[in-house]
């Protein structure tokens, strides 16, 4: 045996170029070949991405610039310098917003982390019940949530008046008003950010790491300080950023507790006073701060990682054995249950109260079905429901189509500018609802290429457009999360068996993404139905959604009817949660997306 050439000679094969297009049904065949070949070409990602990029630019990015242009359009930078002058509303609003946000982070952090440790590390009676209902207050639409806390804890609220009656004092006991009221709402609705991330970090933590510390002689306090808390740090930092951002964007709580000097309230007040340039200035500042937070979060999430090394071992729970401790735990569990369910219970109770019947009593005095009868029989009262359903449905369809495609493009296609596309979607999420509304007002109060030359402000279409911009990230996140679970080899297998790109996408990838897409779509729909923050700035009398109607009824002291609308929304949310819960994989996706709702 002699040498073995490393490369056999290819001389035996006659060189042939060009693919052998089967002769026959000529033009059409060649056209479809070129078309399907198109999905395989280097340019295909760009063909798919270009319209998506245009949409994000047109409805998210470009309106931001329009707002900035609006803010400097009349007096150049004079509006901005008002943030630096010592006295003045602008400066104090900024400071108040920052203080409220910082305090919210602190309060939510304490409550959320304590809850996570108690529920994940200890075993006591009532634990499962609390785990089941712990997210209930946060699941309410922002307006309903804020109203329920007002009904519960403000000067005229159930708790202070109840305590007043019990103790026989002249004034309501422990009423929350102003900034304190805002902080109560924030704490109850935002601690889940801390709870969820701390609980996940605790669950993912390898117990042997902690055991190793004990084994090396560390006491319990030392283990917490030197092992547990440092390992929780990444989770806590992300949660802090999220709560800070969400508090900064919060609008309904300051509105209901009458804290006028916050950024969001100033946007609203200036807009309703007709000073759009000043409203735009506030919106620009708030927008820039939010974007900085978004970028900070992405940077931080990119570098953090304390992944647990071993897996499979569940973190151990300490059983509370001391009888006194058990009774205390039971009592605390009951109290927690009441506190967690109180907002929903209050809405349900008030929904059946006769309008005007609740004056100085602890709870409403007279009960009736009339509120619901009015809503469903009076066409004027029913119109807001129709409006909300219609506008939210339109927006949801848009969110699903565009959200799924962007998720696919960002996660599966390789093209330049992928990161930019990703950031652009999340930008829509990071921007407060008030800012989104001002952006759309600035961009579409005159005709614009993206509105096909039409003025959109004052029309029906601005509402679904605003919902689309606000809730696109929900569908994107849940689709992307589901997509991450699907092995790209599945689509390749379909391609290998002869499926065109469209067919492989439809019959395999999209089909498998469906639970996540549906979960995200339902979430977007529910949020659209409850949307208040942006709506209140752009609605017209014909397009008033449920939330605006609730707000108006509150102002005209028709609390019962307002709560009845709220109750209907709560029922819708409950139904949707049950449905999404049935979509096995959808559950994970929606949880992922829910973490991002603001």
């Amino acid at each position: 045996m002699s040498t073995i050439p490393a490369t056999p000679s290819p001389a035996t094969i006659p060189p042939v170029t060009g693919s052998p297009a089967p002769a026959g049904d000529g033009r059409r065949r060649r056209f479809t070949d070129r078309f399907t070949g198109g999905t395989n070409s280097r340019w295909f990602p760009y063909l798919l991405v270009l319209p998506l990029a245009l949409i994000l630019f047109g409805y998210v990015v470009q309106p931001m610039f329009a707002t900035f242009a609006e803010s400097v359009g009349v007096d150049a930078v004079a509006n901005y310098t008002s943030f630096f002058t010592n006295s003045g509303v602008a400066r104090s609003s900024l400071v108040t917003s920052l203080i409220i946000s910082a305090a919210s982070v602190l309060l939510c952090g304490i409550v959320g982390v304590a809850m996570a440790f108690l529920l994940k590390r200890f075993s006591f009676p009532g634990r499962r019940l609390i785990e089941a209902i712990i997210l209930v207050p946060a699941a309410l639409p922002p307006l309903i949530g804020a109203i329920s806390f007002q009904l519960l804890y403000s000067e005229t609220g159930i708790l202070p008046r109840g305590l007043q009656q019990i103790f026989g004092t002249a004034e309501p006991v422990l009423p929350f008003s102003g900034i304190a009221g805002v902080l109560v709402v924030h704490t109850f609705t935002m601690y889940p950010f801390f709870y969820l991330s701390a609980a996940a970090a605790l669950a993912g933590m390898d117990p042997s790491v902690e055991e190793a510390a004990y084994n090396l002689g560390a006491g319990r306090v030392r283990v917490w300080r030197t092992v547990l808390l440092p390992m929780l740090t990444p989770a806590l930092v992300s949660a802090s950023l999220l709560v800070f951002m969400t508090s900064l964007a919060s609008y309904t709580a300051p509105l209901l507790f009458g804290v006028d000097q916050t950024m969001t309230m100033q946007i609203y007040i200036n807009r309703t006073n007709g000073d759009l340039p000043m409203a735009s200035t506030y919106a620009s500042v708030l927008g820039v701060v939010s974007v900085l937070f978004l970028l900070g979060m992405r940077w931080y999430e990119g570098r953090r990682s304390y992944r647990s090394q071993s897996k499979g071992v569940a973190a151990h729970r300490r059983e509370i054995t001391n009888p006194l401790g058990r009774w205390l735990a039971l009592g605390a569990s009951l109290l927690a249950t009441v506190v967690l369910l109180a907002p929903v219970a209050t809405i349900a109770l008030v929904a059946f109260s006769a309008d005007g019947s609740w004056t100085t009593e602890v709870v409403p005095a007279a009960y009736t079905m009339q509120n619901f009868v009015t809503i469903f029989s009076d066409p004027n009262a029913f119109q807001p429901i129709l409006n909300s359903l219609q506008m939210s449905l339109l927006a949801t369809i848009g969110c699903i189509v565009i959200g799924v495609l962007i998720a696919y493009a960002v996660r599966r296609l390789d093209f330049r500018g992928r990161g930019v596309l990703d950031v652009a979607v999340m930008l829509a999420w990071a921007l407060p609802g008030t800012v989104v509304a001002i952006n759309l007002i600035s961009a579409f109060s005159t005709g614009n290429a993206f509105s096909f030359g039409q003025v959109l402000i004052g029309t029906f279409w601005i509402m679904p457009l605003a919902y689309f911009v606000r809730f696109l990230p929900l569908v994107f996140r849940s689709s992307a999360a589901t997509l991450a679970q699907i092995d790209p080899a599945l689509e390749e297998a379909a391609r290998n068996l002869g499926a065109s790109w469209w067919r492989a996408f439809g019959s395999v990838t999209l089909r498998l993404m469906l639970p996540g897409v549906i979960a995200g779509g339902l979430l977007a729909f529910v949020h659209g139905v409850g949307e208040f923050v942006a709506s209140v700035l752009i609605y017209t009398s014909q397009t008033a959604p449920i939330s605006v109607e609730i707000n108006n009824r509150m102002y005209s002291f028709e609390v019962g009817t307002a709560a009845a609308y709220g109750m209907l929304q709560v029922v819708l949310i409950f139904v949707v949660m049950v449905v999404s819960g049935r979509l096995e994989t959808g559950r994970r996706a929606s949880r992922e997306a829910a973490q991002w709702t603001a």
Partner: protein
Amino acid sequence: MIDVTLESVSKRFGRAGDTAAVDDVDITIAAGEFFTLLGPSGCGKTTTLRMVAGFYFPSSGRIRFGDQDVTRRPPNKRDTGMVFQNYALFPHMSVAQNVAYGLKIRKVGRAESKRRVEEALAQVHLAGYGERRIDQLSGGQQQRVALARALVIRPRTLLLDEPLSNLDAKLREETRVEIRRIQREAGTTSLYVTHDQAEAMAMSDRIAVMESGRVRQIGAPQEIYHRPATSFVARFIGRSNVLSLPVLGAGPETVTVRLPDDSQVSVAAPTDHGLGTGATALVSIRPEHIGLTSATEPGVVTGRVTELEFTGMSTNLLVDVAGEAVQVAAVDPPAGLSVGDQLGLRLPRERMWVVRP
């Protein structure tokens, strides 16, 4: 007849100038042949296979099926059947639906499709499993569904990317026999990727050994084993000693080298060895071909045992010969041999072979 041709195929990922994942590869595969790409992880096997499947396009070079140039043809027009490393079965379809997927795309009639699916499932010993969900199957069964799905469309080329790597050792051996049987019955040209040299040797008609994106040698298992082209191939296929020995003279197919005991020996070499007097030749010899002896005669070098390991079938020794560690697999070592002993190693001339670096 030649079925698949890769002609100077290269693939670079990322920016131009980065090192190539696949570098100037020439391969021809005959119709019906079972051809294997063998090499360590990261050497470019998967990338090569995916270029044949059409999931990557080569940065340069051509790929031909028969006399058709398919270099830039999309994957769904190539008529290859691929078995993925993790099987890539569609989780939302039953076993039968998975297998029927390619037939549906080919618009095969319902009755015909049903018959062929049943036939394919029977072929992989899964008759009656058609209605099962994918997650109700064991790993080995999933592997066989993937094989059936690829075979049922009667592809012109079967592509397999480490299809056995997720199976346990016993199942791996059974399944490799099965794959080979089915492939022979169907007569489908197959391109198989593995990093397991034993698997490659047992299954293949021919093997291409790859290293760092390049093909180092192509040949039948025996050729590669007995006549490795490079020191990498010698060491990667089985175990091998590669000794650096001074060249005393060179012929067209032989090279004369000096052994550590100063004796001269003429060793077979490839025709393009390019070695001249004074150069250093790399000479490979397998541990099992080295004999132990106490006699001193030409061709016997002496060394000191530094490690000794009894494996049952043989005793593996590491012997220090003038500073070089030589592996020896002795079937019948002298009784009482222990670390530190001096002994003679017989290096048979006919078992030595000059390799390239």
